[in-house]
């Protein structure tokens, strides 16, 4: 790819600040590799507690949140933000491989989560969902 192509793409797409909260390092590594190649900036937190600290420190355009994590899981992150009445201030996309029912997913959205993506995911779909959610 030539340099002119790259700069054209940069103009088309806004660079996003993305927070990834997931305990699986292979997943976070793949996501950061992909998203940085797409010119976004990624911050990684490997568990819910750490993720919550990052959320409280810095604003992110969009947050990918895994649900099943040891000790402090994604549900706890959502609950904590809910209790502080700040859940709706953040654009959270739940990103999970758990066997979760549509009802449970709908409930999360009702509570203030922006959207959800089920693992494994087509990376193009993931990318467009991140951009769409960030621009909402």
């Amino acid at each position, binding site marked *: *790819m030539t340099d002119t*192509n790259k700069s054209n793409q940069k103009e088309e797409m806004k660079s996003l600040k993305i927070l990834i909260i997931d305990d*699986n390092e*292979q*997943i976070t*590594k*793949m*996501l950061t*590799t*992909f998203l940085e*190649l797409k010119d976004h900036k990624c911050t990684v937190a490997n568990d819910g507690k750490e993720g919550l600290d990052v959320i409280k420190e810095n604003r992110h355009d969009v947050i990918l949140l895994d649900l*099943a994590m040891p000790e402090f899981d994604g549900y706890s992150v959502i609950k904590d933000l809910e209790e502080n009445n700040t859940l709706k201030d953040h654009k959270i996309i739940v990103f999970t*491989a*758990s*066997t979760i*029912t*549509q*009802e449970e997913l709908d409930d999360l959205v009702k509570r203030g989560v922006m959207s959800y993506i089920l*693992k*494994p*995911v*087509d*990376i*193009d779909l993931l990318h467009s969902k991140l951009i769409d959610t960030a621009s909402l």
Partner: protein
Amino acid sequence: MLPIKQTLFIVSGVSSFIIFYMGIVNFLTSVDESTGMILLIFSVFVATGTLLGTVHISTSITKPIQKLAKNMSEFSKTNKISNKNTIKTNVKEIFDLNKNFEVMGEKVEKTIKVQKEYVQKLKDMDRKKVEFSSMVSHELKTPLVPILGYVQMLQKEELLGKLNEGQKDAVDEIYASTIKLEKLIGDILTTQKLDLGKLVFDEENIDVSELLHGLIKEFELIGIEKKIEITANFNEDIQIFSDRDRINQVFSNLIKNAIDYVSPNTGCVTIGMKNDSNHVEFFVEDNGLGISDENKKELFKKFYQVDTSSKRKKGGSGLGLAICKGIVEGLGGKIWVESEENVKTTFFFKIPKKPLKIKTSDRLDKKIQNK
């Protein structure tokens, strides 16, 4: 039916009357007045005695029997022997009857308790199975995330660099297998849920013609690519109230199967529906190889494949039709196949236009009972 009490009363009443009557006759006909008087008084005593005796006997028999009858009817309702109405009796037969009833009752009580424990155990086992398969599916899906991600990144050459032809083919094969693996994991989980009656069905208004046209559109490209004609054949537009995604899933599985079994260029796949008063009958027809009678019976079983060698090449898991059957039955309908070898095969599935009110838990209970 004649109760014991009344019968005894009638018998004793009649006999007392006869005794009393004979006393009077004796009194009137006897020569000696005092002898007649004695006989009369005696007959009055005997008659009264008979009556009182009857009352006593009949109560001592009927009271405990009535109590026992009450206990039995209570037992049939509660399956528990109540200690409230203990029966006291000096009549040996009734005592034995009651004793036997109590022994039988205790046994029934015990059996029911054991049965309940088994049902609970089966339910626990089912719950554990669901938990286990959910966990396995989570653990299998997680590593698929980076696999799929990196493969897709490699396929997009602008991200990680250009590939030569051999590398491109290799990456495409990895991608195809990854997608198959993902689908297989989903199928296994769906099968398990269907088995345990844990699959939840939605209820929504479905425009049938929209659904069928949507399917035709979905398979249009594959049809063109494989030179197979895929058409819809129906002339009515109806609304049903059911689970759109699940019906789509059944159709997709059947259409994919049909596409696999027809030959390119001459292959035809037709989908459609027939309207019935309470049901709608969908069908997927193809002009492929057909299915032998022997295979028809086994077709809907899990992991059954008509021709193992050829089907494996096409990548079926052997779960597709089992899932179709499970879904259609879950929706309150039935699925079947009709086929003429080397002419055509038609899969039918008939579902109610409005869902039957079966709760998932009821289905599970039924399943346990069937076991």
